[in-house]
């Protein structure tokens, strides 16, 4: 369960970078300016964090039990 969360955390940076690249490509070639499409980065970052949170929810509870 925590492995999935670690995976999500590990691929967060690359996924955001790929999204940024795709947005810049779309800016160059398909006429969607990046000044309009930048909130996609916010959404992708939030989605990754949300997935990490939900995937790591049981593991996080276990850690809290060890600490408390």
């Amino acid at each position, binding site marked *: 369960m925590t492995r999935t969360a670690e995976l999500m955390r590990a691929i967060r940076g690359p996924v955001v970078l790929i999204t940024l690249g795709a947005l810049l490509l779309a800016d160059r070639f398909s006429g969607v300016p990046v000044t309009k499409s930048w*909130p996609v980065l916010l959404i992708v970052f939030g989605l990754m964090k*949300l997935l990490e949170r939900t995937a790591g929810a049981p593991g996080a509870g276990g850690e809290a039990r060890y600490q408390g």
Partner: protein
Amino acid sequence: MTENAQPKPVAAYCRICGAALGEDEVRLAHGTVYCAAHAPAPEEQAGPPPLPANPGVSPGLAFILGLIPGVGAIYNGQYAKGIVHVLILGLLISINSSDAAGGLEPLFGLLISVFWFYMAFEAYHTARRRMQGEAVDEFSSLVELRGGGRSPLLPVLLIVFGALFLLNNFGMLPMREVLRYWPVLLIAAGVWMLTQQFGGARKGGGAETGGGAATGGVQ
């Protein structure tokens, strides 16, 4: 002192000399038991603990330097944080000065000034922790984002604001029009406080005052 002249029960024995000690003769030091003659000098308890570990660190200087983007974090030796602060501030400024804000320039102007002062106060608190020899968080000394980790508030807020900005930028949901209806927030806050008053009356009436809906109207 002889054996039968000691009516008190033995509580412990001294670590050094092995003398039997009563309840009131026990001296605790370093987690073990000593008698009064062999107890080490309590040098830890003597000095006041909040001696500044790094007296050369000045929080006031950190605050002033924190007004220069990134320099406050650099003063604290956190170079990555300084770069991230400069990047975030530059991103906000460039969003505001290009047409990427999509009519929400006042909102981004507020965000820029809030973040500017956030950098100064964050540098101040980090420097104060360094001066007192406490551990310094690499991420932020003001906002606890990693410690809690339970509530998915931050990701949900990111997604919601991202979706709103996206719809706004592509003209499907122009925020300039939507934000004209901002007094609805006041009505919603009032209704929510009413439900708190009536619904929570049985549980002891700990109704918080509604968080100020400080979404300033653009129009």
